[in-house]
């Protein structure tokens, strides 16, 4: 809620011209979510300091989200840091109150606006999940001298460590317009929270403001990606409300664990092509087994479905996922609405669970469980086997799952950690074979095992695949 801008350029009072705000006045600028105040705590020839104080009204924040939208209640909307921290909201105020300064316009001192002057910017509470290190990574490449200290979480909770806020002071010689544009773009990037009040248009506007320096920034990839990720998360769903009922924190988590988009295992495995290889291996098995009607249980965003639809030999392609959001995402990704009728007729897509028997699963000659079983609690696996092998009982079932022995080959994966936060377990080859063998015996299947990915002579392949036939 506070930014101070100081300069020691002489005369320092020229800062008032550059900011288009008179040093001897206290000015208020109404915003849709509160009021921005500009005032000068320090005015002298040697040194002049301007302050932007943003007084956020939480109630106004809610109202500004617009009436007539579907009710979206989350506690985070009522108890949050927006009134105190310098966040994306602060960037929006900055862009509004210092609009001309941001554009480098100054009729009274045009040469000064074009010149680099000594500046010190201070923000006592910058929302930044990455801590001081990340702040430095963002500002130092631009030439700032960065002084950043983490704010402790709570003196009353010893041992709880630091908060996600940083007390930040930036010093350097910059054009004022550039300095403001750095804050304008980078404050929302540092702030990992969900920006449900920032519309897509505003995001574009912010990105445009980075023209001129963003292209040369070593972290430009991160900066751009955060904006994009944020846009995908404009929608929250009922699942998160349930998590909240359970006292689980959802506010700042990087994507809910229900979100199928941001948590692709490939990212962690460090090999984007492993997913491709897996889909290829599954397709090869389905072709070899002469499957014609295939059901993909746990279809996610529908990557395998797309490849199945591309091959006319698959007369019927059914995608099922337990997440309504995933099914919706697959529907959009596959462009179901604009699909030619003969392709659309082959496709079925619905929300279902491999733990609940479902007559819609019947009538397929192959079922695919690609990277699914490891997301199911071990105690529920018998139910999954009963539903898939006992009830749906297609001629062929293809199961892929990580081979945990291979994990030590992943440099970024700490020992003992699993590849995905939602994995309930990862099996060794022997453990997988034990499960698969028991299931095959109980439900009358034969099972064979095939490697997926570049196999290590000792550790085996990164992904293991079991092909069940009867």
């Amino acid at each position, binding site marked *: 809620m506070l930014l101070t801008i100081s300069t020691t350029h002489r005369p320092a009072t020229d800062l008032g011209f550059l900011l288009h705000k008179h040093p001897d006045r206290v000015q208020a600028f109404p915003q849709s979510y509160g009021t921005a105040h500009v005032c000068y705590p320090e005015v002298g020839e040697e040194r002049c300091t301007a302050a932007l*104080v943003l007084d956020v009204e939480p109630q106004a924040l809610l109202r500004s989200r617009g009436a007539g939208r579907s009710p979206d*209640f989350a506690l985070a909307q009522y108890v949050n840091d927006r009134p105190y921290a310098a966040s994306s909201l602060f960037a929006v105020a900055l862009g509004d109150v210092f609009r001309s300064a941001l554009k480098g316009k100054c009729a009274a001192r045009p040469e000064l606006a074009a010149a680099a002057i000594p500046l010190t910017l201070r923000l006592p509470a910058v929302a930044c999940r990455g801590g001081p290190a990340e702040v430095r990574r963002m500002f130092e490449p631009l030439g700032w001298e960065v002084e950043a200290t983490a704010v402790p979480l709570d003196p009353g909770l010893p041992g709880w460590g630091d908060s996600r806020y940083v007390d930040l002071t930036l010093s350097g010689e910059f054009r004022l317009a550039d300095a403001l544009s750095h804050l304008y773009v980078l404050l929302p990037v540092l702030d990992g929270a969900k920006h449900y009040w920032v519309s897509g248009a505003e995001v574009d506007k912010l990105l445009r403001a980075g023209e001129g320096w963003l292209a040369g920034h070593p972290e430009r990839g991160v900066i751009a990606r955060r904006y994009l990720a944020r846009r995908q998360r404009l929608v929250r769903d009922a*699942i998160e409300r349930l998590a909240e009922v359970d006292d689980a924190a959802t506010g700042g988590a990087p994507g809910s664990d229900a979100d199928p988009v941001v948590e692709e295992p490939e990212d962690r495995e460090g090999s984007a092509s492993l997913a491709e290889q897996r889909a290829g291996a599954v397709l090869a098995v389905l072709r070899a087994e002469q499957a014609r009607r295939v059901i993909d249980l746990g279809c996610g965003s529908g990557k395998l479905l797309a490849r199945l639809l591309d091959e006319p030999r698959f007369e019927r392609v059914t995608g099922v996922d337990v997440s309504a959001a995933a099914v919706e995402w697959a529907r959009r990704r596959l462009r179901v609405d604009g699909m030619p009728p003969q392709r659309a007729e082959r496709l079925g897509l619905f929300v279902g669970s491999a733990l609940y028997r479902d007559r819609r699963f019947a009538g397929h000659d192959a079922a695919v469980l690609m990277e699914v079983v490891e997301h*199911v609690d071990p105690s529920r696996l018998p139910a999954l086997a009963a539903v898939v092998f006992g009830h749906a009982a297609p001629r062929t079932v293809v199961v892929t799952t990580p081979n945990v022995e291979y994990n030590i080959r992943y440099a970024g994966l700490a020992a003992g950690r699993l590849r995905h936060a939602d994995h309930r377990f990862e099996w060794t080859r022997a453990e997988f074979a034990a499960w698969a063998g028991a299931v095959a015996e109980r439900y009358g299947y034969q099972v064979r095992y095939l490697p997926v990915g570049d196999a290590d002579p000792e550790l085996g392949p990164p992904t293991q695949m079991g092909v069940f036939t009867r």
Partner: protein
Amino acid sequence: MTVPDGSTPARGPGEGAPAAGGRVLTIPESGLVVLVGVSGSGKSTFAARHFRPTQVVGSDFCRGLVSDDENDQSASADAFELLHHIVDTRLRRGLLTVVDATNVRQQTRAPLLRIAKRHDVLSTAVVLDVPERVARDRNRARSDRDFGDHVISRQRRDLRRGLGRLDKEGFRRVHVLRGPEEIDAVSVELEKAWNDRRHLTGPFDIVGDVHGCRAELEELLAGLGYLVDRDAHGRAVGARHPQGRTAVFVGDLVDRGPDTPGVLRLVMGMVAAGTALCVPGNHENKLVRALRGRKVTVAHGLAESLAQLDAEPEEFRAVVLEFCDGLVSHYVLDGGRLVVAHAGLKEEYHGRSSGRVRSFALYGETTGETDEYGLPVRHPWARDYRGAATVVYGHVPTPEPEWVNNTICIDTGCVFGGRLTALRYPERELAQVKAHRVWYRPARPFPSAAEAAPAAPPERDSGVLDVRDVLGEDPEQDVRVETAHGPVSVRAPNTLAALEVMSRFAVDPRWLLYLPPTMAPAPTSADPAVLERPAEAFAHYLGDGVERVICQEKHMGSRAVAVVCRDTAAAERRFVPGTLGTIHTRTGRPFFTDPVVESAVLAELRDGIEAAGLWTELDTDWIALDGELLPWSAKAAGLIREQYAAVGAAGRAALPAVAGVLDAVAARGLDVAELSGKVARRAAGIEAFSAVYRRYTWPVEGAAGLRYAPFAVLAGEGRSFADRDHLWHMGIAERLADHTPRVLTTRYLVVDVTDPAAVDAAGAWWRELVTGGGEGMVVKPLAGALARGRRGLAQPGLKVRGPEYLRIIYGPDYLEPDRIERLRDRSLGRKSGLALREHKLGLESLARHARGEPLWRVHQPVFGVLALESEPVDPRL
């Protein structure tokens, strides 16, 4: 049996018959009636006179629906499609349906008959045959009908052509009414299906397959309390129960055993005297054919019956033939809650009549394959059974009767040396007598109960849930869950959210007998300075006619349901084998990520229950508790860090800096007093806010530091404790606390809301609780969870939260006058409606579990609570 026109003897007029001497048409109560007659023959008038408007589906009506013009013949195809759909839906639901269309051509009648057949209901044709002149005159008199006379002539030709063969088309009964006089004079009498004995409510003793084991049957009946009547030869010829109980035989009285005639004599006597009902088995069916002299393969013990019956007089054989031939394939009893059929019956066949219904009832559903002993492989229909009616049957000998989805097979192979079993209904108790000897060697070895016991238990396929159990037939549609307190409906998108959470995060559903309902706050305080206070909660209950309430201290922790088993045997029988209990959250997730901690807490609760003597006192080997696990930080550490402490940190970092800037500005002589004042108040607000969450945060290491405050004993074996009052529940919690330090008691106060002094005292008690950030209290009807108010089930509780505590709900500064003024405008209706609906579902799942209903029945209301919890509602309430 087809009864064509003319052969039906004219009976006396039924109740409310319009004209004396007119014919009485008997029509099955829940079948299809097809009116047949040319335009102007008076079908609509006939239908309106004899049937309710909703029972009649007319082609003109449907034509109007699809074209806005009842006479638009170009819309006929669509109109009939709609008509067929309506007929299909009504017949599926078992409703009498009358089709008012000309139906003069076989091609238009055929699809209707197909629909009736699909739903296994009987079809009746009523032909209104009027002279062409009458029809013509009537049509001319109607301004909206402009088709020519030739149309009627053609219709009449069509009618004549088909008239003689209507019965061959598949109508069970054909009534032809000739001329306006006869049509006006008839009356209609609705006839119940033969299998419909819903008015009989028992109590019943349902007896399994007897197969000629007369001595065992007499022993069983005597054991059940029946007094056997004997003839001059000392033979049992009847039996009656002094308390008026009725025996129901599931069939297969005959064959294989030593005394088929003796069994028949006894049962026939009981049925004739009205002390027993009997449905046929496949063996009776075959015996009938053999006695009629048809060619049958004499095997499976039929030879013994025939030989034994040959020794009886001819008259006896005739009576036996008549008796067995007249048996009705199945009975629907006790208001539809009980169905008895020899081989069982799937739900869609209950109360229906057709060849395939009879065949299912006699033989079951076979897959067409045979097993290694040459016996037919049967389709396990009971595993898929989802009906509300209890189905009792025999046919397949099993060593031990077992309930599967509300069905039970009580053929325990008496004739093979097993036992003869009776099920007492509604008590659901089994009575058994041992076979006196092995009377017959079965084709497939029949294990004795002792031999079968150590073998693997039958595949618990009924433990697998079906998606239809929770999403209904159509996942796009809302789901309705019937409860003892009325139906509760759940919106379709919410059921999908629940499906995901249940599949991905919940504990094994066999543990979930209850999910706690949400709780509404007391109505908003009339005092503008606070949002909630006790007065409104008391006023609510006073207004609802609930005079005695209990105020319970609200512990700020996390809701936790604990199911504690005494031993693994209890867990295996009732929940999940190889475990000893579970502790789950309000959404069914495991409370602890570390199973070691869960086991430790469960072990202490188990020891506490043991030491308090509750296993014996409550006569159970498992107990489900509902309570609050403390500290809040144990479960909500992430939430406290991300949501609360973070806000405190940001405020503490920013506000002093802002205050410093404003002080400097003020020192320059500028006026920032208003803003300064605001910042100072905010800084104080942040400190008060932080004090609240700190209060509920303390270190926990494994199980050390955890406290469990139970406030309800939900259930034990065979019963729910929802009927106990809250003092009882509090008393149990206190006794547990006496025996295990892990358990924390709850302070409470009983208040008579009609007594102003008591209400004042309770207000003071509450103020003491909330000073310094206490969460507050919950006000509940003292009588317990089943307490009723003026409008039915009362709200199970209303929370009254403290003003300081509410800072963590409404924000650190919510007590600022302009802020609280706006917050007072909170609509509570949705929240309290939700609380009551979830409460009904909670009571229902406990009741179903207590009755021993199958998993899917218990899961349905539990799933409903989870789905309702995902509805968008202001989380601050």
